[in-house]
């Protein structure tokens, strides 16, 4: 049997599974998990039957808000969410891409007011496959790969 690196199970908390390989650190940034009180395990480039390679994040004793969950879909549309209590899966949540995204996305358009005046960006979902977002200010549309995130 092939030897495989495993990520330890957690007692209770949240597992974000099936994250696009290499995106785990971005997910952590996006939902602001980098706080000292969070106990986390991160697996990067694990082998997956479904995806070939995947990333996984396990967070002890932390329940994510719907907003946080949905924003994960922006960088990893196929991610899934599992809530664990006492080592048991109690809930699997479907991740849905949010229709509106406030803040976090930087508009790539240098002539956009959000890059000139002090104003929080607002984007709306403009396409799901591939994921595209439209700036509510300059109204330009971008693929999710084209935008940068800011935290």
């Amino acid at each position: 049997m092939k030897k495989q690196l495993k990520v330890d199970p957690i007692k209770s908390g949240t597992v974000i599974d099936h994250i696009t390989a290499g995106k785990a650190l971005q997910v952590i940034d996006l939902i602001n998990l980098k706080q000292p009180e969070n106990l986390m395990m991160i697996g990067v480039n694990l082998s997956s039957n479904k995806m070939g390679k995947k990333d996984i994040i396990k967070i002890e004793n932390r329940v994510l808000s719907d907003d946080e969950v949905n924003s994960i879909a922006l960088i990893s549309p196929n991610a899934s969410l599992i809530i664990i209590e006492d080592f048991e899966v109690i809930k699997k949540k479907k991740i849905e891409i949010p229709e509106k995204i406030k803040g976090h996305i930087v508009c790539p358009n240098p002539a956009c007011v959000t890059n000139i005046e002090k104003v929080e960006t607002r984007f709306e979902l403009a396409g799901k496959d591939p994921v595209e977002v439209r700036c509510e200010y300059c109204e330009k549309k971008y693929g999710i790969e084209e935008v940068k995130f800011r935290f």
Partner: protein
Amino acid sequence: MKNLISMRDVSKEDILELLDLAAKIENKEVHPDLSGKLGALLFFEPSTRTHFSFDTAIKKLGGQSFSMSGTSSTSVKKGETLADTLMTISQYADFIVMRHKIEGAARFAAETVDIPVINAGDGTNQHPTQAMLDLYSIKKTQGTLENLTIAMIGDLRLGRTVHSLAQALSEFNPTFYFASPRHLQMPQYIKDELTAKGVRFEEVEDIHPIMPHLDIMYVTRIQKERFAVLEDYEKVKDAYIVTPELLEEVKENFKLLHPLPRVNEITTEVDKTPYAYYFQQAKNGVFMRQAIITKLMNLI
């Protein structure tokens, strides 16, 4: 409706209401009164025609205006933020008409101040009052906006006018023909939106065969200032020129529209034909802007 920022925010019902109101103002069926109200015309990016058109609309409604044109002589030069300039102006004025080269500036303005904001152009993004006056001109000449066949020619890539107009007309079951030099084609995102809405459109190189089918031809100027290399401009500037010969086989109801100013894309001989409508179109702009101000200021 408190502001007019983008045609994206304007519903089909809003469009029809504004068209109706503009017609009533033109026919003197209603007499909205803007007296005692002050409009700020903030043209951070100068535009003589749009500026005059709004000023005329305000004065015809009995209101008053003050103007700013360009950024050289203003607080902008002293490094004041747009937000601060707008907040200050909003202490004096009852509404703001704004043109700015920054994209999204008008939406930002509307979120910054409490008074109504009308977008008179924000960079390459939106110019909704132009779209509305174009719709008004089309409705006036065709009697309807429904089921029309419309060609757009010239610079379709950077011309925000044609983008807003195509978006607005897509609610009315149109058939579009787009003709432009290779590098100035209608952007993919506009074409995607039309496809998503089930709008029929075709990109053509030769406009002669489509002429007998058209109700409206909307011509835009290929703008020299949009080209980094002058040679590139020289190559495409004469790509589509409308002459009386081109119009020989058009339908009786056919009309030619142009947002003006024109350079040479419509020859002056065309002006005398019954198809030329661009100067009336400019006049219609005043009625439409009166209607927009009337609605946003709740005058009737």
